[in-house]
């Protein structure tokens, strides 16, 4: 007989909630715990219990210790089963087998319900998540591949469309030059305007794609050709800087330049000065003297060509120790530092009738007929 086990059993039986439960359940519990019948009897002997008085308020929590995990639904079930068990005990203590069987059935039902709930709450969601992740991975891969190919296709399509539009613009300009007819001029201008707007939208889309591509290319070049970084840093940084930073609306410059070139060519057509080149300035091969448009320069840089006319200038200080010159003039006070009424000017103008003489004495950049008239009105009125 193990004293330790008996002690544990005594403690168990002394617990107030245990005291309310039927003897059979106590016994069966202790048996399950591995106590011998001798030890159980000894424990029972030691604990003075009013086993005959079983109250129906017994909430046999110990009954549920057989089921380790306790979902919420278990407690009412267990209380129901204990209620049934206590009712049984109330009626007939001698009918051990019947209550035993019922008790066993109740336990089985409770454990079955418990496992079902467990499955529902914990395992199924995890399984679903796992399946969903797998499915998503597969979808992602296919999506990414399709996106990359889509990107490439769209850039190529945009480039082809831009080239086609440029060709058509060139063709229409040639037609104009050959005809030299004023009647068609207006229609042609309208046509070009439409083309300009189309090109504008395409160029903005192209630019966005190009910027992204530039960034990717730049990082690629950084990896592959570290020695070339120095020379490429300048244009690329400026390119990214200009295209991404403050020129959010360079379309205005582009369209205005397009219009200017059209005007120039129209004028030349009018004059019939018969310039040998029929193409607009921007279409001429590099090396010409005409100013290139902004987009042209950008395109050249992206192609890797250097725009013409850039000289190699050494602008480092020839004498870094050159002293600063002595100031020859004392700094003047600022107009807002001089305490004077707001409506007077910074230079004194005598308000007399000989305005003409004073006006003639002023240099042209001080003469302002409007302001002087206003001042006159103020003094006169």
């Amino acid at each position, binding site marked *: 007989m193990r004293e330790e086990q008996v002690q544990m059993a005594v403690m168990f039986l002394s617990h107030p909630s245990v005291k309310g439960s039927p003897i059979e359940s106590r016994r069966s519990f202790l048996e399950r715990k591995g106590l011998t019948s001798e030890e159980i009897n000894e424990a029972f002997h030691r604990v003075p219990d009013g086993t005959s008085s079983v109250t129906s308020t017994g909430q046999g929590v110990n009954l549920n210790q057989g089921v380790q995990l306790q979902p919420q639904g278990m407690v009412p079930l267990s209380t129901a089963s204990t209620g049934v068990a206590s009712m049984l005990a109330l009626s007939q203590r001698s009918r051990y087998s019947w209550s035993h069987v019922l008790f066993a059935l109740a336990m089985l039902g409770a454990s079955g319900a418990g496992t079902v709930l467990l499955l529902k709450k914990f395992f199924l969601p995890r399984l679903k998540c796992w399946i969903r992740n797998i499915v998503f991975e597969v979808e992602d891969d296919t999506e990414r591949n399709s996106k990359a190919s889509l990107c490439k296709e769209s850039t190529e399509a945009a480039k082809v469309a831009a080239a086609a539009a440029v060709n058509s613009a060139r063709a229409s300009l040639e037609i104009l030059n050959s005809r030299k007819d004023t009647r068609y001029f207006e229609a042609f201008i309208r046509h070009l305007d439409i083309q300009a707007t189309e090109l504008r939208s395409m160029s903005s889309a192209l630019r966005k794609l190009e910027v992204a591509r530039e960034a990717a290319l730049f990082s690629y070049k950084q990896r592959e050709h570290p020695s070339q970084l120095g020379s490429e840093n300048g*244009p690329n940084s400026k390119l990214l*800087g200009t295209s991404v930073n*403050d020129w959010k609306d360079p379309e205005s410059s582009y369209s205005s330049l397009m219009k200017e070139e059209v005007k120039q060519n129209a004028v030349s057509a009018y004059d019939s000065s018969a310039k040998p080149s029929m193409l607009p300035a921007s279409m001429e091969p590099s090396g010409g003297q005409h100013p290139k448009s902004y987009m042209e*320069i950008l395109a050249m840089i992206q192609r890797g060509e250097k725009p013409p006319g*850039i000289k190699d200038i050494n602008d480092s200080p020839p004498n870094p120790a050159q002293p600063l010159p002595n100031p020859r003039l004392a700094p003047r006070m*600022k107009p807002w530092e001089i305490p004077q009424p*707001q409506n007077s000017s910074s230079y004194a103008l005598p308000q007399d009738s000989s305005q003409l003489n004073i006006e003639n004495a002023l*240099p042209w950049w001080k003469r302002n*007929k409007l302001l002087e008239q206003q001042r006159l009105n103020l003094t006169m009125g």
Partner: protein
Amino acid sequence: MPIFKTPFNGYSVKFSPFYESRLAVGTAQNFGILGNGRLHVLDLSPTSPAITELIAFDTADGVYDVAWSESHDSVLVAAIADGSVKLYDTSLPPQSNPLRSLQEHAREVHGLDYNPTRRDSFLSASWDDSVKLWTLDRPTSIRTFREHAYCVYSVAWNPKHADVFASASGDCSVRIWDVREPGSTMIIPGHQHEILACDWNKYDDCLIATASVDKSIKVWDVRNYRVPVTVLNGHGYAVRKIKFSPHRRNLIVSCSYDMTVCLWDFMIEDALVGRYDHHTEFAVGVDMSVLVEGLMASTGWDEHVYVWQQGMDPRAA
């Protein structure tokens, strides 16, 4: 009103604080994308309406901005697209120039401002997200202000408080700084798009105006920077530069990518008081003279510099 034609695309124009008839123009080849630059010092001839070139300095990279020194009448500072800040002396021939080349910024220097009150220091704003404080005599910067998350386009000293300045950045905010403090003292989340320029009101030290890519100019009171004092709409494209008039309390001049230079009086209902559309390309630089009331100059990518009196037509003879 005379016109000056520059060989390269104009970027910035500034009147000299010492000589009424002198101004500096910074230009860059190929629209500033890639190429050389040139710094012109021009003079307005008193007799005939003409602009003559006093001296010109060639640079290896584009000149994005220019600032005259307030302490030395012949010294000017140029912001170069290769990240350097160069000092020039107009009293020396071009072969002896530049005096100094200060290479510290990692990217293009886009804005400069010389301190008009203390007259000893100047600031440079760069696309490397930082602002640097310099003096003419030191070969290295005194301080670097690095808080912006994107390119800093413009800096402006406060005309009353010699230690306070503002910086406008592509991260859509304006930061107010005090050189005595370690970090910025105020952040104005001014616009939803990049802010290209800022300038302080010369007569009210709490008012600051910002110009943004969203085509608007907003005037803010730094004491209550949640809501702008006023919003000036009227430009058709991004507003590139603004300047408060040194002579009139409420007058602002602005230039924009819609090729116009506009005059605003922000205290009246109909704020747009003047519009000049003389440029045929982006109008990128504008300035009002501190010495001559009403005198304005502008330059743009159409390679022209115009100087005119307020109210007159810049293209008139």
